[in-house]
């Protein structure tokens, strides 16, 4: 242990999007969620890691990558569409440079975008070799990031635990997917929405998960009360470590009112040329039916509360990330000093964020992180660390029973279970029960088409369980799509089930859903069996 260390900082970026793949369409609006996240968050973050590597800056991040993302990163169809998406952006930015040739205020911003899109495209093709995962693996192998997993399809486990096989399948399939893509077993797991229930740690332990994260109150309301609050991890009764979110550092970034992303110098997310420019001009770059959509080209800064926005200045914004990084680190140092005075070891501060906050929502977020690591290097005394490294140094921790909670609004499950979306759970529970029974009775199934149907039933259940659908229904954003997806997977499940039970399988339909809902190609339905366990 280094005696100069005043405290440890664990920054965690949770990286997740639901599985969205529509091979039947040339353009599908919701597929752009992935493309925007890759271009605006994942690649800029990896590019900044590379910059820090070149500059000799030591950095340490923990990144959870959900299995649907792992699958989508490796999906040839989606990555082919992603390249076309990038080509379109380069084309649009070129047209913008021409359109703004007599506008000295805005044309430099158009040039900035063109260069940026070309850089992202080149980085994706030449450095990442067409798969974002290569970037994560590279920095994992260098020891800069700890990559952990998340549940198979981001199912909210406390709402699925009517059927424990469904919960266990979410965990075991995630571990298998991680091993397939990352070549090792994960040590940690990001619980979807940080949602926990009593007894979940037994399953996590069974699959070799050493740690997970909870929101502040999940630890603080544990029994007995944790002596060091969230500033040291605790163990569950089964010896799985739990790190609790530090509310102070979270608020500095997340807060809509006080958080850094709302600074007036930063780019305004909502003013996008997809909405601002003449429809005939912008039509080739938005939805083919003319429905306006974000393009990623945004010319204005937040400016303030006034309607009249000022032009965005990328250099000014970049410099502001340095100011905010200095403030963030200074606050951590003060916080760690205050806490450390009362603790027998340096405190650890956990700061978990959605990865898409950095770059997608907060355009300058990756530069903020870049400057934070620069600042840590300068300040000394603060050390960024991964959970596994921390637990190696401090294996002795208090045992508590964490409180079932989530990190969503109000701290529990309201966002995913309310009058708008509660209809989902009756189906999810029934499907899980049905699949468990089928897995038991067909455990020794040898017929290949029956096996394919059973495996596809498991995929349809997993896709229906994605917490994203219930979330989007509640927030009324992409609600129609979220409802449709939920209904589609439930309907596919029952159509396949009917075919299986009547022994009249429609091979065309089976092939169609296998191609479309194609995640986890190696999935074995027997993961749902409750008998025949070794």
């Amino acid at each position, binding site marked *: 242990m280094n005696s100069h260390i005043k405290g440890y900082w664990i920054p965690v970026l949770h990286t997740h*999007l639901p599985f969205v793949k529509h*091979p*039947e*369409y*040339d*353009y599908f*609006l919701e597929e752009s*969620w992935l493309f*925007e*996240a890759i271009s605006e968050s994942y690649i800029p973050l990896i590019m900044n890691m590379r910059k820090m590597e070149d500059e000799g800056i030591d950095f340490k991040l923990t990144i959870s990558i959900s299995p649907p993302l792992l699958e989508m990163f490796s999906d040839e169809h989606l990555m082919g569409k992603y390249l076309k998406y990038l080509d379109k952006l380069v084309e649009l930015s070129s047209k913008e440079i021409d359109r703004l040739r007599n506008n000295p205020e805005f044309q430099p911003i158009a040039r900035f975008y063109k260069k940026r899109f070309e850089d992202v495209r080149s980085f994706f093709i030449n450095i990442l070799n067409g798969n974002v995962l290569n970037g994560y693996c590279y920095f994992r192998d260098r020891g800069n990031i700890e990559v952990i997993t998340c549940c198979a399809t981001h199912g909210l486990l*406390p*709402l699925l635990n*009517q059927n424990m096989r469904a919960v266990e399948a979410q965990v075991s399939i995630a571990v298998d997917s991680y091993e397939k893509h990352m070549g090792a077993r994960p040590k940690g797991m990001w619980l979807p929405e*940080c949602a926990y229930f*009593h007894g979940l740690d037994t399953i996590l332990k069974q699959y070799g998960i050493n740690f997970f994260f909870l929101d*502040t*109150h999940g630890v*603080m309301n544990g029994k*007995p*009360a944790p*002596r060091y609050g969230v500033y040291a991890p605790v*163990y569950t009764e089964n*010896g799985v470590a739990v790190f609790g979110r*530090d*509310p*102070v550092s*979270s*608020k500095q970034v997340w807060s809509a*009112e006080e958080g850094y992303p709302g600074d007036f110098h930063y780019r305004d997310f909502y003013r996008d040329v997809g909405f601002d420019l003449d429809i005939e001009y912008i039509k080739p770059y938005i939805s083919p039916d003319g429905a306006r959509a974000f393009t990623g080209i945004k010319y204005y800064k937040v400016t303030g509360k006034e309607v009249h926005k000022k032009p965005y200045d990328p250099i000014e914004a970049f410099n502001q990330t340095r100011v905010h990084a200095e403030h963030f680190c200074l606050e951590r140092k003060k916080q760690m000093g205050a*806490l450390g005075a009362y*603790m027998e070891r340096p405190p650890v501060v956990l700061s*978990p964020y*959605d990865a898409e*906050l950095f770059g997608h929502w907060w355009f300058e977020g990756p530069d903020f992180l870049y400057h934070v690591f620069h600042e840590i290097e300068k300040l000394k005394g603060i050390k960024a660390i991964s959970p596994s490294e921390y637990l190696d140094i401090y294996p*002795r921790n*208090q*045992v508590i029973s964490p409180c*079932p909670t989530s990190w969503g*609004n109000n*701290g*529990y*499950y*309201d966002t995913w*279970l309310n009058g708008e979306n*509660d209809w989902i759970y009756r189906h999810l*529970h*029934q499907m899980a029960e049905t699949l468990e029974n089928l897995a038991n009775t067909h455990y020794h199934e040898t017929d290949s088409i029956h096996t394919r149907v059973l495996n596809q039933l498991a995929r349809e259940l997993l896709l229906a369980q994605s917490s*994203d659908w219930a*979330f*989007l229904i509640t927030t009324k954003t*992409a609600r129609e799509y979220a409802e449709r997806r939920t*209904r*589609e997977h439930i*309907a*596919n499940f029952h*159509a396949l089930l009917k075919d299986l039970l009547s022994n009249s399988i429609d091979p*065309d*339909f089976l*092939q*169609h859903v296998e191609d479309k809902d194609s995640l986890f190609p190696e999935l074995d339905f027997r993961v749902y069996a409750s008998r025949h366990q070794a």
Partner: protein
Amino acid sequence: MEKKKTVKRTAEDHTIANPAFRRILHGYNEDTIVIMPVNGDTNFIYWEITEELLKRKRKTQYSGSEKLMIIVFDEDSEREIYSFEVNNRIGKHYMKFCGSQERLVADIGFVRGETFVSILKSTPATVSSFAEEAGNHEVWMQKVKNSCEIVPAPTDNIIAKNGLQSLFEEYYSDCMASRSGSISGSMSLSLP
């Protein structure tokens, strides 16, 4: 949104593209009652009771004229906590209850005379509350590789404990007060 079809989809023609296909079942004709926690003071209950079950019960216990009802009780103490009448074989209900660590069971049945006659029970759901006082007994564990052993707690003095407590109050009161809005992990914007 204009959708350009690029592949022939015979399967889709009779399934996914047909909106009628997405009309999912309202119920499953399976007897079910489930209770799930929503938050510290709300639980969600859904149920389905089949005609077959009611017919069977009519032969022995249930005349058909009694009102069906659901009672929710604490599994350990068997104390009744909440009850309501049920008018439909398939339904849902939200119940308010601010307890602490009770294991709640929902039981659907009917009242005959003074007695509640159970038809179907849920598995228990555990609710949690901010209200419960924590115990003082601390257990500490040392974990090296996969081996865990119980070890003595650190010997921090009372001043340290008080100092930490006041810092926690400063950090948590500020942030917990505003957590319902501004520091939620999942931002309510369109990208999930």
